[in-house]
């Protein structure tokens, strides 16, 4: 799905440098008025170039973790570090991809205008977009094969198309961390395969893709790493091939 002829290394890992690293240390988060912490002492680190599935039953804290990483919710304890510095100091590095029902689909906005929103963090509130920004937006749209949709209103798009538009916005933002909440929900098998392949390609270009995910059987097909959560506690973290064991899945889901 990624157009390879027009491949651009969006901050792809330079072989001479260490890839960027996300390090989570003792992370705790609690909703206001909740008795128990929603996330309790999570510890993991992962490099760019990988895809991470955050897994667990409902209420395990998957969305909470994504919210904390996105800066939508503050942690009560612990640290989230990006290359050793607090992640919330470099907000532009994080791109949050909304679910279809989280945005106002009747909003009057074209695909191109939506992708251009990705340039807002770099431009600030007032600076006008220049040629450089237009080039980045064009490339992002071509990478996700949505260039021919650019003048369409978002209301006219299918679910899969809309998801690609939001991914293009994340690329235009030049963010290294892509956060997706339940991106596979509602996709049929070919759609899920295409999305899994696409996320893998985006990650291997030097980004870190983190998504909440449900399906134990297919996790290893779409993701390199998995984080297993249950009631906010970390059951295990590691490469899918190693940690999706019968034991681990039993302690996570039953």
């Amino acid at each position, binding site marked *: 799905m990624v157009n390879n002829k027009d491949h651009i290394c969006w901050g792809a890992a330079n072989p001479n440098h260490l890839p960027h690293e996300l390090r989570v240390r003792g992370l705790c988060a609690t909703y206001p008025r909740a008795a128990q912490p929603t996330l309790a002492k999570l510890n993991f680190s992962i490099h760019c170039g990988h895809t991470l599935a955050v897994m667990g039953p409902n209420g395990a804290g998957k969305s909470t973790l994504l919210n904390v990483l*996105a*800066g*939508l919710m503050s942690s009560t304890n612990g640290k989230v570090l990006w290359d050793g510095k607090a992640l919330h100091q470099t907000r532009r590095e994080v791109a*949050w991809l909304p679910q279809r029902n989280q*945005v106002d689909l009747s*909003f*009057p906005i074209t695909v191109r205008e939506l992708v251009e*929103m990705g340039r807002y963090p770099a431009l600030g509130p007032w600076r006008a977009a220049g040629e450089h920004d237009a080039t980045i937006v064009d490339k992002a749209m071509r990478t996700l094969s949505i260039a021919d949709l650019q003048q369409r209103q978002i209301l006219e798009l299918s679910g899969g198309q809309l998801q690609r538009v939001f991914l293009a916005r994340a690329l235009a933002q030049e963010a290294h961390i892509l956060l997706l909440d339940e991106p596979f929900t509602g996709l049929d098998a070919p759609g899920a395969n295409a999305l899994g392949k696409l996320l893998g390609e985006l990650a291997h270009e030097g980004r870190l893709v983190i998504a909440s995910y449900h399906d134990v059987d297919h996790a290893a097909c779409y993701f390199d790493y998995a984080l297993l959560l249950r009631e906010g506690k970390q059951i295990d973290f590691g490469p899918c091939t190693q940690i999706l064991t019968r034991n681990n899945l039993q302690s996570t889901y039953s």
Partner: protein
Amino acid sequence: MKDFLQYLAEPIAMRTLWTCVVIGFVDGYVSALVVLRRSSLQIGAVSCALLPGIALGILLFGLGQWSALVGAVVAGLLVGLSSLFVARSSALHHDAALSIIHSAAFALGYMILVRLGLQQKVDDWLFGNIMSMSFADLCVAYGVGVVALLGLTIFKRPLLLWLFDARMAASLGLPTRSISYAVYALIVLALVSSLQAVGALLTLGLLVAPGGIMRLLTNRASTMFWGGGCLGAGCSVLAFFVSYPLNLHLGATIILLLGAIFCVAWLLRKKE
């Protein structure tokens, strides 16, 4: 007709006409924000809740332009924010909380105004009386207009991002809660500035219809703002020229004209 030409020569006619232009434009411009924010019903409730503010303002500071206006602003902010607070701190949904609070406030306001012997005035507050607007009212409308135009132009980019995708705005560190309060305050100010012209009940029409009509005709947010402003101003001026010769209520004529244009726009709308 002769009467009308004579009336036009009077200074009060010019002032009324100017009031129509300014209020129509400001409310029309802000109406795009109300439509995009999807808060039309909420604003309707708040506009009714302005009545007790006016009543209390008059009760405390005597009958006057400023006491009524200040009372209205305070009531609008208080009702909106308290309903938000009730909703956040209980299982009740925001619209239910707002409905209860605004109808109770409306009843209280009506009671106070009747007790004060201002029945005649009640009609003016509910349906507006553009002819009775003073120069000070016009200045308030100008002021709100300038704030709205400058604010929405300067902060267009963060505002559109917040309207469309509040989560992305928050994740980029924009102060989304402050933005939502500021937008709410701006809408209440627009509401209050047109209160005397079209009244607490009819002002909702002027604060929703122009933006709504433009949404049917355009797919561009900025066109909704400017088009809404021009539509609001144009309709108000047209209503001014129609209502006097036909002896119609000016405020009601403005809203009715907007309603008619809405019907036409719906027929001509871009099919989705």
